[in-house]
Structure formats: C-alpha cells, structure tokens
C-alpha cells in the first residue's frame, strides 16, 4: 500500500513537473513574440531587458519555471534521479506537440525523429548511476 502511494505521488509530481516546464517555455515564447525579435546591439539588448521585465507573460512563465524547479527538487528528494530524469526527456516530445497545437508551428518528420533521438538519449543517461564520485555508505 505504501509503495502504491509512493508510486502515485512520484508519477503525479513528475507529470506536474513536465506540465510546468512545458507551459513555462510556451509562455516564454508567447512573451518574446509580444516583445518582438531582439536586436544584438547595446540599445537592442537594453530595450529587450526592459521589455522582458515589464512583460506579464514572461513573469507568469518564470512562475511556472519556479514550479518546475520545486517539483523537480521534491521529486528527487524521495525518488531516484534515474526515475525522474527520463521524464525530462518525455517533456521534449510533449513540448514539440504543444508547439504544433498551441503555437501552430510546422514540425517536419526529420525534426520529430531528432526529438525522439534526444528523448532516447536522455533516457539512457537517466538509467546510469546518478552518483559516480561518492561511494554509498554501507551500514556495518
């Protein structure tokens, strides 16, 4: 029963983590579209800095990204890093899907293949030992 609860709690937190990251990034994109393309010059960067600080959508995005950090930190405090990390990879695929559905971006088959190769790579990294420098303490 305890394991069942733990599994549910972890899945819920990981799902919330992916939602927060995806919504945060989407809102960042929306905010930057409102501001317009940034020009690389002293004036352009100054204007971009002021515009982002004054943009409500960017602040909302930052709130979601803080939510992501909070979910990530709490998830790794009780669950394995190798369990939580592959969920980050799953986020790349949902982000691409959301880009199509919400922002109506065109995504080619080649880009989808690239996204899935990234997901698979991150999942492989996630399956390796999270700590390679410190030996785990063995109870005597």
């Amino acid at each position, binding site marked *: 029963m305890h394991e069942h609860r733990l599994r549910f709690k972890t899945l819920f937190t990981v799902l919330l983590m992916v939602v927060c990251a995806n919504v945060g990034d989407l809102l960042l994109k929306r905010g930057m579209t409102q501001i317009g393309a940034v020009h*690389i010059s002293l004036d352009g960067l100054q204007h971009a*800095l002021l515009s982002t600080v004054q943009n409500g959508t960017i602040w909302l995005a930052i709130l979601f990204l803080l939510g992501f950090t909070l979910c990530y930190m709490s998830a790794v405090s009780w669950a394995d890093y190798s369990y939580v990390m592959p969920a980050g990879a799953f986020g790349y695929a949902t982000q691409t899907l959301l*880009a199509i559905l919400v922002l109506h*971006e065109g995504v080619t088959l080649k*880009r989808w293949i690239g996204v899935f190769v*990234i997901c*698979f790579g991150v999942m492989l*990294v996630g399956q390796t030992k999270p700590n390679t420098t410190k030996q785990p303490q063995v109870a005597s």
Partner: protein
Amino acid sequence: MIKVILMLGVLICTSAGGEIAMTYGMKRIGELEGFHPRSVLRFLGRAVKCGWVWLALPLLAVSFYSLLILLSWAPISLVIPASAFNYVAGTFGAKYLLKEKVTPKRWLGVTLVFLGVLLVVATG
C-alpha cells in the same frame, strides 16, 4: 540561421558553465541538513560566501537571457530540443572539470542527444 547557431553556442556555454560552477560550489558547501529554517539559513549563509556560486549566478542569468533572445528569433520546437546539447557540454565539463566518472552507457546516451540535436538544428 548562423546567428541562431551562435546564440545557441552562448546558451550552451553559459548554461553548462553556470551549472558546473554551481555544482562545484554546492559540493564545497556541503549538503542541506534538513529543511528546518535554521538549517536553510545556515546553508544560504555558506552559499553566499562561496565564490563559485557568485560565478554561477551571472552565467545562469546570461543563459536565461540568451534563451529569451533565441525564442524571439526561432520557433520553440527548434530552440528547446536544440538546448538539449547542454547534456553533451555538461557531460564533458563533469568529466574533465568535476572529475566525474562517465560510463559507456552514459556516453552512448550523450552521443544520441548530440545526434538528435544535429537532426533538429538541420531542420532549422
């Protein structure tokens, strides 16, 4: 496209550099001993005095701004997957700067991330 790739380079360098400096700083500071307010304050006090944390913060701020600039130039379906290249740069930094051991399986994963990013950027 060249300016997007250059800005992606800035994003990767500052993000991986900031994360490595933060990790190095955190390992010197030591673990957070529980979530009691006094422990958290003691931990923050140690963090404020650590030079590596002060190196990490501006790098991470520049990385966040380069992400914003990239999002103002390119579609999100290109920028976010391409930013996964951070895993590759971070792994090299972890191996050579933090002296972490990187297993063949992890290298294989990192190589796949690299190939995936190349595919995504090639569609830009």
